[in-house]
């Protein structure tokens, strides 16, 4: 596979997180784009590529947005891949810039949070979901993940205390990331364990809070970024694989198992060289699957790994082994802004690797692993993607 030399990521923006909003997806995507342009000192027409992900565009799409925003891109893509959308956008946009199909690509995930919008998305998610999962209690993805979590707990002996390790350290990180919607509240083990039940082993703090917001970044050549004087980071490796392990009766691993080694090889790094890890944390068990499948520990050792690892951004936890994880608080503590959630880990990693995380900095961060997981169709998540990003000061 061809490498990602010569292209870089810049202008990370997280915009407008809110529990509910009368504004639509167009507003969040447009405002995120405006903020990216402001940060980069670019004019709208300097952007000649546009990649967009959203669940709530309604009748609109990436192409109708070009008229709304009065842009004339020569490269366009729409990536409806939920938690993997940002990484898939990153891979597509990087190739477009390498090939010369576009010079600067804006990659944006954004969604509104209108009253009862989440219910509509869940009820109409896909044909399989309409016929075979939504009629069974209408819990949305909670039902599928309650079953997956239950299975994981029985098979590998994970406990709710283990899942708490992920949620609590992320809340600590969110306490140091001002935009996090739950960042003003602390979370104790007692609160976590005593939370009201949602579905099977899942309780309130295992589930993300749907919200509105936007996340975006720019992809361009390294020369261009240098010329613009923009802080940037590199893509050392990236991969994706979808509907992997399709014969597993219950999901307990994702496509990462099939390309994690290749990623480390391409980056000439190992898991021990990763300074921060951003997993897609729609539920704590999914973060554990990613830690296992990306080689941080063996399959089934996720519970022991999080027990023995300090996941805080500043290494202030008691455990000797440190792995800053979901350093802005992840979706569990920031909120899940629809498709923006699939961009969150990339945007936060760019901030960290370019020294632009003033409140929650991972000191000396050089290598970030970002992982995405998405599209809970019927009984499992279908998309997997991951990338290793590197700071410009290698």
């Amino acid at each position, binding site marked *: 596979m061809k490498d990602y030399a010569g292209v870089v990521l810049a202008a990370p923006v997280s915009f407008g997180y809110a529990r509910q909003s009368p504004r639509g997806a167009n507003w969040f995507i447009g405002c995120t784009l405006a903020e990216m342009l402001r940060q980069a000192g670019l004019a709208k027409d300097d952007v000649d590529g546009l990649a967009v992900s959203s669940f709530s565009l309604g009748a609109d799409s990436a192409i109708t947005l070009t008229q709304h925003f009065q842009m004339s891109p020569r490269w366009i893509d729409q990536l409806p891949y939920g938690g993997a959308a940002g990484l898939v956008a990153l891979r597509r946009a990087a190739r477009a810039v390498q090939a010369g199909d576009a010079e600067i690509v804006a990659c944006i995930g954004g969604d509104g949070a209108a009253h009862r919008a989440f219910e509509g998305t869940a009820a109409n998610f896909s044909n399989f979901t309409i016929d075979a999962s939504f*009629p069974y209690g209408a819990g949305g993805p909670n039902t599928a993940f309650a*079953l997956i979590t239950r299975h994981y707990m029985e098979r590998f002996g994970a406990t709710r205390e283990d899942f708490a390790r992920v949620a609590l350290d992320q809340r600590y990180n969110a306490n140091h990331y001002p935009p996090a919607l739950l960042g003003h509240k602390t979370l104790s083990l007692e609160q976590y364990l005593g939370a009201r*039940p949602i579905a099977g082993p899942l309780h309130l703090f295992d589930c993300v809070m749907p919200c509105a917001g936007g996340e975006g970044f720019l992809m361009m050549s390294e020369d261009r970024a240098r010329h613009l004087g923009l802080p940037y980071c590199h893509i050392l490796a990236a991969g994706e694989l979808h509907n992997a392990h399709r014969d597993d009766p219950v999901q307990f691993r994702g496509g990462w198992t099939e390309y994690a080694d290749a990623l480390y090889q391409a980056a000439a790094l190992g898991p021990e060289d990763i300074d921060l890890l951003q997993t897609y944390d729609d539920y704590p068990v999914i973060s554990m699957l990613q830690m296992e499948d990306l080689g941080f520990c063996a399959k089934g050792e996720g519970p022991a790994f999080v027990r023995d690892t300090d996941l805080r951004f500043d290494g202030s936890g008691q455990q000797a082994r440190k792995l800053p994880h979901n350093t802005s608080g992840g979706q569990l503590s920031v909120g899940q802004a629809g498709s923006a959630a699939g961009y969150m880990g990339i945007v936060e990693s760019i901030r960290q690797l370019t020294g632009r995380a003033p409140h929650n900095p991972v000191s000396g961060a050089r290598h970030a692993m970002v992982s995405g997981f998405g599209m809970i169709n019927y009984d499992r998540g279908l998309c997997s993607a991951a990338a290793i990003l590197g700071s410009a000061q290698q």
Partner: protein
Amino acid sequence: MSKRQTMRQRLKLNRPSRRRLARPPRQRTPVGMDFTAANLPVALSLQHCSACGAAQYPPREVCGDCLCPTLVWREAETGGTLLAGVDLHHSLWEFFKRRIAQAPWPVASVRLDCGVTVFAHLALHTFSALPAKDAASLPADTRVAVFSHSDASRNAVLIAVSADTPIAERGQRRAIAQQLELTSPAEKPEGI
């Protein structure tokens, strides 16, 4: 009252939570409607591939194994193995919200012997040996039977029972569906 306010008032009153009767989700895809039609006369009917014979679920347009375009509805064996069972304490849908207000709603994923995975409402009362009547006390690999029955929206839905539950007769199956309160709408007497 202005026209706009009247409309707002109507929308507010028209919320599912305000209605007297709430029913399970009615929406199905065209093949989902075929599933209901095929399941009316039998305990369980699934699509089977006319070329390779593979059973299919969820309902679909082409064979998931060999992509053969012709799938036929055929009676299927009801036996299967529990993958996981959970109690739902939260729902996005008013019918289940009202049911859950009374007691958690148990559902399960089941691997049928014919090789497909189904979600089903879980009839915990048929598991006589169960100490606590919650889905969490039902271990994986428990043998179960899965049959279909019409819910209060007149769609066929799947119900999982203990393997030794008699379900050969329609009346037996109806009694289980009724005991789950699946066949009647969830009523709110003061609703509109």
